[in-house]
């Protein structure tokens, strides 16, 4: 892992634009600002084109001879296939409303990270090849030739966009920059120009069912370890089931929660909640990944990886699917899964067996987000909660881009949070809800070799956290996204070290009073509960 500059150095952002016009300013690959190139093995496993050893900083990218033809055909295909793509290419008036809304622009000061200009990288080629004005007037009409340098510029900047869609909130035309980046990455993928932090998890998921490559017995082993910890904290031994046919509910969550802290505490939280409810559910070691890094390569790959969820639900004969805390997982599920792999007419419209609530919003996809599920439980007084157990925490809420902006889930997690903690503080209004700032590392950019980029991109989010930490003593940043749990931890350690990171259901499980549990003395992390030390001292 490359050494990072100190925060005081990284926060000196140079906003002086280059002296030359953007088309005449060549891309410079800066160490720490990009990820490693994809490995041939990862591409071969899923049948992606042009697998070979290559390095982004090398002059020769070992492109196929007809690379230009492949790309132009790729653009033409997508213009036919996606009406949105053509629309987004045509309608931008370059008003600049999006320019300063991107966390990567704010954190780097690089004009090509203005969403409008990032889109121009591809739009200029579109004009040259697909519009009459561009063909005749060339540069005067904002058109330019597709060259290897242009291709490199695409790669560098489409992997400096996290598809968070904050810019689209401010666009008067509603142009969705995420879709432009998605198309950009799809096109690059046609030439084998991926990053290994995406291609590796994709091939793992294809071969073993999850991004980490955890084998079935390893999934069980890791959860067993967490069950030991739950027993230590609560005195209760939980026995979840795996791949059980005839269960009412299939539970799917991101694999990150099965290995890495603080995600593991969230996974413990799910299991404690479901145990308390007596929920008839099963884990699957086949559909063992809620996330979908295929979504960051191509629509087709995302569809292939996603297909396991419905297939497993059908095989097990469950009634509906419950999903864990994740960000992009939910954009994929709520906006794509049903179209790709549905209709899931072998499933029933999800109905909570505890409250009887029918989740009409999931009528078609048949999958419910655990935050909605828990909010409904609390609303119907089905949980005994003691929020005082979280009194050592002052919590603020990070709206994960794909859940908040992507699917409009703004109130449910807040409702849960307010019932399980006593100290909740919102970050400034322009940095939350649909205007939330990205963690700076989504869409497969949370590798370890691009830390400069990640810390710069996460700067606006960290700055808002710092504000509530300084003014209100906030010490915990909660969220419902597995990538956030990993990336924000690194971001906080760098920018605001006094603030920790947790998932929502870790806090739920801390507050949850379970039947027959022993008196708790620690939280799920093994830290003493508030008041316990004082009690022990008195005794």
């Amino acid at each position, binding site marked *: 892992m490359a050494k990072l500059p100190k925060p005081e150095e990284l926060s000196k952002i140079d906003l002086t634009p280059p002296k030359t016009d953007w088309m005449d300013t060549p891309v410079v690959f800066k160490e720490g600002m990009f990820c490693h190139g994809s490995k041939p093995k990862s591409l071969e496993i899923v049948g992606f084109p042009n697998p070979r050893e290559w390095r982004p900083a090398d002059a020769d990218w070992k492109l196929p001879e007809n690379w230009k033809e492949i790309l132009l055909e790729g653009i033409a295909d997508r213009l036919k296939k996606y009406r949105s793509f053509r629309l987004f290419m045509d309608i931008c008036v370059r008003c600049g409303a999006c320019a300063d809304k991107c966390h990567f622009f704010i954190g780097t000061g690089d004009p090509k990270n203005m969403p409008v200009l990032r889109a121009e990288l591809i739009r200029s080629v579109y004009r040259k090849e697909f519009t009459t004005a561009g063909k005749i007037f060339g540069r005067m009409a904002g058109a330019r030739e597709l060259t290897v340098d242009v291709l490199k510029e695409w790669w560098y900047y489409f992997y400096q966009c996290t598809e968070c869609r904050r810019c689209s909130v401010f666009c008067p035309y509603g142009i969705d920059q995420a879709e432009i980046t998605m198309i950009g990455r799809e096109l690059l993928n046609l030439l084998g120009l991926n990053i290994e932090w995406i291609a590796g998890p994709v091939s793992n998921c294809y071969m073993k069912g999850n991004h980490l490559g955890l084998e079935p017995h390893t999934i069980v082993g890791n959860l067993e*370890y967490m069950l030991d910890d739950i027993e230590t904290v609560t005195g209760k031994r939980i026995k979840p089931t795996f791949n059980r046919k005839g269960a009412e509910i299939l539970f799917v969550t991101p694999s*990150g929660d099965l290995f890495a802290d603080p995600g593991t505490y969230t996974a413990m939280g799910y299991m404690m909640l479901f145990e308390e409810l007596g929920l008839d559910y099963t884990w699957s070691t086949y559909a063992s990944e809620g996330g979908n890094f295929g979504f960051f390569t191509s629509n087709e790959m995302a569809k292939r990886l996603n297909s396991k969820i419905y297939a497993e639900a059908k095989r097990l004969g469950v009634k509906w699917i419950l999903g864990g805390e994740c960000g992009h997982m939910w954009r994929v599920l709520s906006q794509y899964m049903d179209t790709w792999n549905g209709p899931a007419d072998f499933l029933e419209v999800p109905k909570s067996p505890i409250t009887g609530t029918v989740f009409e919003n999931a009528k078609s996809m048949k999958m419910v987000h655990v935050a909605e599920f828990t909010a409904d439980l609390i609303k119907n007084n089905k949980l005994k909660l003691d929020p005082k157990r979280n009194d050592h925490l002052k919590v603020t809420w990070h709206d994960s881009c794909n859940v908040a902006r992507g699917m409009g889930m703004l109130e449910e997690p807040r409702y849960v949070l307010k019932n399980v903690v006593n100290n909740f503080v919102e970050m400034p209004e322009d940095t939350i809800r649909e205007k939330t700032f990205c963690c700076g590392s989504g869409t497969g950019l949370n590798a370890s070799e691009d830390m400069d980029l990640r810390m710069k991109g996460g700067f606006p989010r960290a700055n808002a956290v710092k504000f509530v930490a300084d003014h209100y003593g906030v010490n915990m940043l909660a969220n419902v996204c597995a990538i956030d749990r990993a990336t924000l931890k690194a971001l906080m350690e760098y920018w605001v070290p006094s603030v920790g990171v947790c998932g929502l259901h870790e806090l739920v499980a801390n507050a949850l009073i379970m039947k027959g549990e022993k008196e708790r003395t620690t939280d799920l992390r093994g830290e003493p509960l508030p008041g316990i030390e004082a009690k022990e001292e008195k005794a």
Partner: protein
Amino acid sequence: MPVMQVNDRTIALDDEGYLVNFQDWDEEVACELAARLDVGKLGAESISMLKFIRDHYRVFNFFPIVNSICRNIHAPKNCVSEKFFNPLIAWKIAGLPHPEEPIISLLEAGQSPG
């Protein structure tokens, strides 16, 4: 191929210093790997951590959940970073094969893909 000498044995490493043959590992090899990585002398606690990591890997084809290593040897839960800086270095000294890229970021920087 790079090699390292441990007493009278020649041990094969890959270009990034990972052990090529899992079965070449023993405590002496671990000490030599640790010295190359500036980890310092390996005490009894470190050796039992490494043995646990190897046993776990043999069964599960994966690195153990980091806190479970410490629990196993009854040490505080930051024991891995205290002894080895980060779990990736523990991986290397435990003589596990060259990890795939996602595992590197996972162990080196706590990053998980989804």
